[in-house]
């Protein structure tokens, strides 16, 4: 039995139908209002055919080309994170009766979602967040249920944007694990498909796909290698970065960054691994029921470190240092993994063009 199959572009809809008959809602990158982001996908024609993106520090631009490929862009503006750890949701509610008795009830909402086209960096982002919400002392039941009901179709990179730096972290634009199916797009033809789980195999069996030819399989690998080689950013070995950052907490570069950083938190909002959140109550006007919400927070917000009377990280310098040292150093101590996947979104979406790779190199040189 072949390890690689071939899914022609014309048969994407068969795959979507198979997923739908298994009860999955399909989600994929789609073009909308000048950007490419995840949205519901009903048919293959809704994919961003021919769209390319250009990313640079503080810059994002999408252009339409005549190419007949659906994944000619690099990566969507958002990662898979919002599907698992929602930007805002009700986590529980409590009803209060006339006697003041409180009845607490967890709110656990999930659905079967198949994500068609997950870049390898975003797959690693899921793996990192699993450590926080699913492989920790206490799990988030909502996250666990969503993960259990997720079907992941990875899309290996055939292009890198100028902010991509997964290779600088020792990773590659090649999906190595954590997927049900992994695909590599060949221009104008279709996808070379690899199976990564039993769930993936069962689905693929229903499609009766032909084995990929040796040439197709080789072409797919070459395209991924080309994407890796297109990355230009470099970092010292990650263990060295981890040690040097914590040894340089008083480095003058922190002041330099603080003179540019707006403390807006954009980087944390687009990050596939950031997990900080806050919780608050939203009571109804009758005083009979309250929703308890969980909402993304950011270590760049002034409230983040506020503990009755004291704000521990009152200056931008301390907030940026918290973000960077957490992501690139203390994450390892906490979760036995690194906290960054090199997707480059924090660089692209920084309004003042701060490039995290440059800052790390400035501190670690």
């Amino acid at each position, binding site marked *: 039995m072949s390890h690689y199959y071939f899914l022609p572009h014309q048969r994407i809809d068969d795959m979507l139908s198979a997923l739908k008959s298994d009860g999955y809602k399909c989600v994929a990158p789609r073009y909308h209002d000048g950007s490419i982001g995840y949205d519901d996908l009903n048919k293959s024609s809704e994919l961003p055919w021919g769209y390319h993106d250009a990313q640079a520090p503080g810059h994002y631009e999408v252009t339409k080309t005549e190419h007949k490929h659906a994944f000619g862009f690099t990566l969507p503006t958002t990662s898979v994170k919002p599907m698992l750890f929602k930007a805002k949701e009700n*986590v*529980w509610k*409590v009803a*209060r009766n006339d006697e*003041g*008795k*409180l*009845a*607490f*009830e*967890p709110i*656990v909402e999930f659905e079967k979602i198949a994500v068609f086209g997950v870049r390898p960096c975003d797959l690693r982002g899921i793996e990192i967040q699993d450590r*926080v*919400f699913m492989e*920790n*002392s*206490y*799990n*988030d*039941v909502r996250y666990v249920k969503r993960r259990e009901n997720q079907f992941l179709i990875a899309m290996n990179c055939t292009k890198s944007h100028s902010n991509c730096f997964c290779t600088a972290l020792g990773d590659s634009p090649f999906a190595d694990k954590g997927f049900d199916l992994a695909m590599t797009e060949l221009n104008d033809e279709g996808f070379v498909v690899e199976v990564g789980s039993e769930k993936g195999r069962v689905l693929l069996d229903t499609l009766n796909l032909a084995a990929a030819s040796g040439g197709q399989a080789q072409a797919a690998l070459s395209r991924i290698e080309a994407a890796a080689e297109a990355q230009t950013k470099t970092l010292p070995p990650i263990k060295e970065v981890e040690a040097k950052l*914590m040894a340089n*907490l*008083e480095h003058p570069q922190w002041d330099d960054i603080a003179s540019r950083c707006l403390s807006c938190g954009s980087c944390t909002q687009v990050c596939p691994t950031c*997990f*900080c*959140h*806050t*919780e*608050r*109550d939203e*009571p109804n006007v009758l*005083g009979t029921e*309250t929703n*308890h919400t*969980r909402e993304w*927070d950011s*270590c760049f917000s002034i409230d*983040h*470190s*506020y*503990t*009755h*009377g004291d704000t*521990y*990280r*009152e*200056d931008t*310098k*301390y907030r940026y*240092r*918290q973000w960077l*040292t*957490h992501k690139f*150093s*203390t994450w390892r*101590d*906490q979760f036995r993994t690194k906290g960054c996947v090199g997707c480059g979104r924090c660089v692209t979406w920084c309004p003042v063009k701060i490039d995290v790779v440059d800052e790390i190199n400035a501190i670690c040189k």
Partner: protein
Amino acid sequence: MLYTNDAYTPFEVEVVEFIQEHHDIFTIRLKFTDPAIDSKYFFRPGQFNMIYLYGVGEVAISIVNDRNHQPGRFEHTIQVVGRITKGMAKLKAGDKVGIRGPFGTAWPMEEAKGKDVIIVTGGLGNAPLVAATEEVLKNRKQYGKLRVLHGIRTSDLLIYEDMYTRWNNSPETKVYMATSNAEPVDNGKWTWGKGFVTNFIPELGVDYANSIVMCVGPEPMMIGVAKSFIAAGVKPENVYISLERSMKCAIGHCGHCQLGAQFVCKDGAVYPYPACEELLKVKGL
């Protein structure tokens, strides 16, 4: 931690008594309304609960054992410092609140056995160490001398006075109370001491080389206390402090309580001093 299927959702408890300790400090005595939950609930001295006030939110507060040693009861002594605690100050007997917990590390009650025990607190830092003190008194023969040192800014801020008197009359136990200002309590009525807690170091009559110190107070005070007792001969690893940071979840998910690589909610709040000494020196960490 009490846990059914979701670590985020609290359990209902009833306020069995509301005690006004001071104009902005109060204690709520609590019991779980579901006996099945109560039978599963067990905390160690030094741990904390998340207390939920209907329609407002949750706060992290250390657990005080029940003053009447009644099974199925525990207490929280709370100071009004923000929106949620302000609302909690209006609670009364019969009211319901939510509890998640217990969370965090505990005081080193095992390590303290066979040693002289020195409890040092400042302000409302005494609440997180009541359970540890009671634990020593309950198993009196397993521990050496017990010294309880408490510092308050002004004399009228003294809470738990009956408890301190009882402790002071217990075997091998002595309470030292210091205030920087005795004025607010009428002349002659203030029978406790003056000055700072560290002033008592020369007169405690303990074997510092075989003592364990447990301290809670404002961060600068804990650092000062740790340094003074280490200078007096206490081994650094036998000095324990308890840190306070913002906590929204208490289960290591929300990110607010981070101090370097530490999640204070689960790696603390009780730390051996050497484990956080360097971290506390870094401004803005």
